[in-house]
């Protein structure tokens, strides 16, 4: 059943379907109803990473090295985890600057350098051609194998036939046709191709399903599940090497370098850059792609090992492992499945061919041919519509690149396995890493460094990876590898300077990265970049910052008309006029009065052009219509430094002045408090000394009387001595209270907080206070409710307060019918104690003063009381410390009531909080 016509019909039907999908996608895009503007399509389109290498080559490598095929897929997973930091920044920068290829990106970053852009393009083309040949080889081989059904032959045994009978050529031509049709249909400033993306996403589904079908068939159809495959494979002689690490290609060093290499490749391969960055519709699609794309890779790899091991068991070494995916269904007579698998392989290969050639052709036209043309033939600058020219260049490039791949495949023959061809390409694009990632995160990287690193890295890559692959194909003598060039052993390409212990890819990666990164960093540090570079560096590295307005590094004059006609040559007259009208409308300008272009507009036009012909060419074209006053490097540096420094300074100044203001206010407050304290201290000292002097004076007076009159009557002497003793006691009490108050105020007092029953305290105090009341014949009554909650307080201190209040009450109550009432009431969460007397009362203005030190209401009455004047301040201090309040309510002639509250024991935390608050206040 499997014969040439059938295979051809099915293949062409499939390719026709692809064309139809792409056409539909383009139509929908034109109608404004995009089918690709969704995150899952974005993730699927990224799966263009999985090529024939994945579809056929992984199995081949797995049959050789066990898990040695995996790092190529683990690396992208890791890079996508970094995607939010790295890829998003690349996407943001590329969109802002209309960057359409990786060469454009690097050239733009380093001052729109023509040299750098061209160089990156050349490396990309040389590096990718083997990769393209890999795809053609895979399709051509599998096509031939399918034709030999039911026999299963090795690709090496098949006569490749004449050049024109090779299916690889036709695949290359169909891919070229598709790419030209959907990749270069029009010159678009965004360089996006929705139809192509739709087709690639579709292909990603086809190859996944085809591979899974083959995997399921092998694992569950031919064997009894995973356990059975692995169990049978255990009997293979090479089983240990496959099931464990440590073989020649699965050393830990190799795994490490392969992971790093694939991490770089997933961003730096021209087709990945194109899909991930240029075709990205919305930055937010990354959110889903970050995990969906790695998941795709995981799923497509699940059956690689079972197929590889199944093939080894089934064929016992008679078939090339690179073709197991196809050979196993064929060997089992599953013709339909074999055909489907073949289609899966075709989809994997064509997807890669299409996107890779679009990316390469854009690079070649924008960074190589156009700049060269503009330089060599200045008259081109004055030509009319250049759209046709640009598209023509691209179409020719597409055909040339694909044919180059085909020629390489024909010439290189069967020498290498699929994966090792691909790894050579990975190594080439990895050379972009220092310039690209360095340029994205380090402003100091400059053009000289990038050029030096790229050049050295590329040369070493060619020497350590490309030339050895030529030697294996027989283009160079084998002695080149074994003995080194001209017999110099130190220069053996796979053991440079005698370095051993690496496989060839790790060896090449080590040397190229060492030299590339080293030169990039070193040269950047020791040379100075050009004028435009500094501006571009800031633009790329600070991609996530808001752009600074008005700091364009450009000075010159241009007419709007000239710019419009320039745009028209690449975009067409209508679109050019439209673009400018939109620009003018956005800024509120009318076209009629708008003749002189400002820097902003020139930059806008340059960015628009950059999308079509690349940043480098756009710069040359714009320069041709603009009278530019060249800016020296020093001027550029000055402008950049000035703006950024002025901004930085003004921020700094604002911050400083705010801080100063705050500090001044604080200082002023502190100063006020200090003055107040100083005054209080002076008052206090003078009052205390005054208070001390009074008893001392009287003591001295009586002592002198006693000394001078030894004949005083005995009774008189006893009276004088009694006064001296009383005064001494008063003095002692005064000193004790001063010490007590200072302890309380400084927080050094010791507290014995416990649950206290206030009734007890009141009883005790009342008993103790009776000595004050008895001489005055005043009555003391206590009114306490039957049940009183406990309070959290210090028993002795509360008693001290009560005694103080009672002694005051005894002193001030009515001299004739003195009555003092102590009352206890329970308030909300607190207990209140009132001590009420029927004395003369206190003037409102005195009611706060009495709580000051050494102020007694007696002073106002002209009658010297016996107290020290510290009792109330101490009491208030104690009550506050216990979380309560002490105050007085009184009216002249209506007696006074001293009240204090204490928190109930349960709310001890409240009390504690209150204490800290008081302590801090």
């Amino acid at each position, binding site marked *: 059943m499997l014969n040439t016509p059938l295979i051809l019909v099915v293949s062409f039907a499939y390719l026709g379907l692809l064309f139809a999908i792409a056409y539909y996608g383009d139509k929908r895009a034109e109608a404004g109803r995009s089918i690709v503007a969704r995150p899952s399509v974005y993730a699927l389109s990224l799966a263009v990473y999985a090529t024939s290498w994945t579809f056929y080559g992984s199995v081949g490598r797995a049959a050789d090295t066990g898990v040695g095929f995996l790092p190529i897929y*683990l690396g992208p997973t*890791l890079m996508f*985890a970094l995607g939010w930091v790295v890829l998003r920044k690349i996407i943001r920068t590329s969109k802002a600057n209309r960057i359409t290829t990786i060469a454009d990106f690097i050239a733009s970053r380093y001052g729109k350098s023509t040299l750098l852009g061209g160089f990156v393009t050349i490396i990309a083309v040389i590096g990718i051609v083997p990769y393209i040949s890999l795809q053609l080889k895979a399709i051509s081989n599998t096509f031939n194998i399918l034709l030999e059904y039911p026999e299963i032959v090795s690709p090496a045994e098949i006569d490749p036939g004449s050049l024109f009978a090779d299916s690889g050529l036709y695949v290359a031509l169909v891919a070229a046709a598709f790419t030209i049709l959907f990749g270069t249909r029009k010159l678009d400033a965004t360089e996006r191709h929705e139809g192509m993306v739709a087709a690639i996403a579709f292909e990603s589904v086809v190859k996944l399903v085809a591979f899974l079908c083959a995997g399921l068939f092998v694992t569950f159809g031919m064997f009894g599940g995973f*356990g059975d495959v*692995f169990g049978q494979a255990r009997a293979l002689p090479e089983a240990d090497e496959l*099931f464990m690490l440590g073989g020649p290609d699965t050393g830990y060093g190799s795994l490490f370098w392969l992971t790093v290499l694939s991490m770089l490749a997933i961003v730096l391969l021209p087709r990945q850059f194109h899909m991930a960055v240029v075709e990205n519709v919305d930055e937010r699609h990354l959110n889903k792609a970050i*995990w969906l794309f790695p998941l795709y890779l995981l799923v497509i790899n699940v059956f690689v090992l079972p197929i590889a091991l199944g093939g080894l068991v089934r064929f016992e070494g008679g078939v090339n492992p690179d073709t197991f995916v196809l050979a196993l269904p064929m060997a089992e007579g599953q013709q339909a499945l074999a055909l489907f698998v073949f289609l899966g392989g075709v989809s994997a290969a064509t997807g890669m061919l299409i996107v890779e050639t679009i990316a390469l052709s854009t690079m070649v036209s924008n960074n190589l041919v156009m700049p060269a043309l503009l330089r060599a033939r200045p008259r081109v600058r004055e030509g009319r519509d250049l759209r046709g020219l640009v598209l023509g260049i691209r179409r020719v490039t597409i055909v040339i690149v694909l044919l180059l791949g085909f020629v390489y495949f024909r010439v290189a023959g069967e020498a290498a396995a699929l994966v090792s061809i691909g790894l050579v390409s990975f190594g080439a694009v990895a050379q972009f890493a220092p310039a690209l990632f360095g340029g994205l995160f380090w402003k100091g990287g400059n053009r000289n460094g990038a050029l030096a690193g790229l050049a050295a890295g590329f040369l070493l890559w060619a020497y350590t990876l490309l030339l050895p692959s030529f030697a294996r194909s027989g283009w160079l003598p084998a002695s080149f590898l074994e003995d080194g060039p001209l017999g110099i052993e130190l220069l053996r390409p796979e053991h440079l300077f005698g370095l051993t212990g690496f496989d060839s890819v790790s060896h090449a990666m080590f040397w190229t990265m060492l030299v590339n990164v080293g030169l990039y960093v070193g040269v950047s540090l020791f040379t100075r970049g050009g004028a435009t570079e500094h501006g571009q560096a800031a633009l790329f590295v600070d991609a996530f910052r808001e752009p600074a307005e008005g700091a364009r590094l450009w000075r010159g004059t241009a007419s709007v008309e000239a710019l419009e006609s320039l745009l028209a040559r690449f975009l067409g007259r209508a679109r050019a006029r439209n673009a400018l009208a939109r620009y003018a409308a956005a800024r509120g300008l009318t076209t009629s009065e708008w003749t002189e272009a400002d820097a902003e507009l020139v930059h806008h036009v340059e960015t628009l052009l950059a999308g079509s012909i690349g940043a480098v060419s756009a710069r040359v074209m714009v320069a041709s219509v603009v009278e530019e006053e060249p800016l020296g490097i020093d001027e550029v540096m000055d402008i950049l430094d000035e703006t950024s420094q002025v901004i930085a300074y003004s921020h700094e100044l604002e911050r400083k002045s705010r801080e100063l203001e705050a500090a001044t206010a604080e200082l002023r407050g502190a100063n006020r408090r200090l003055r107040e304290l100083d005054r209080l201290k002076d008052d206090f000292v003078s009052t205390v000394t005054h208070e001390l002097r009074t008893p001392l004076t009287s003591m001295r007076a009586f002592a002198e009387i006693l000394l001078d009159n030894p004949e005083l009557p005995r009774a008189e002497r006893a009276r004088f001595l009694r006064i001296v003793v009383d005064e001494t006691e008063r003095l002692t009490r005064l000193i004790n209270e001063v010490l007590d108050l200072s302890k309380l105020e400084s927080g050094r007092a010791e507290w014995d907080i416990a649950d206290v029953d206030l009734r007890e305290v009141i009883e005790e105090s009342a008993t103790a206070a009776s000595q004050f009341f008895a001489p005055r014949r005043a009555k003391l009554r206590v009114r306490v409710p039957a049940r009183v909650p406990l309070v959290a307080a210090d028993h002795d201190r509360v008693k001290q307060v009560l005694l103080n209040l009672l002694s005051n009450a005894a002193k001030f109550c009515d001299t004739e019918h003195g009555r003092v009432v102590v009352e206890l009431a329970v308030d909300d969460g607190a207990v209140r104690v009132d001590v009420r007397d029927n004395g003369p009362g206190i003037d409102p203005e005195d009611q706060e003063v009495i709580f000051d030190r050494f102020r007694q209401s007696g002073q106002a009455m002209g009658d010297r009381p016996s107290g020290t004047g510290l009792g109330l301040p101490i009491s208030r201090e104690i009550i506050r410390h216990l979380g309560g309040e002490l105050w007085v309510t009184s009216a002249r002639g209506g007696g006074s009531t001293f009240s204090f509250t204490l928190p109930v024991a349960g709310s001890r935390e409240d009390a504690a909080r209150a204490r800290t608050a008081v302590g801090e206040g």
Partner: protein
Amino acid sequence: MRHRRKGERLVAVALLGFLLFNYPLLSLFSTEGTVLGVPVLYAYLFVSWGLLIGLMALVVRNSG
């Protein structure tokens, strides 16, 4: 701010992955023996790979 946090979390996941897939952690699983019939090394690589992807999805979802 939220973007920054998400980026930091994902970078941490990437570092974790790099550790999981390289020496010396990897060497712990390069042994004979099987898990449900699958060689230990294969099982380890695929399971940790899957978990890593799950973690990435989780971070993306939870960081908005």
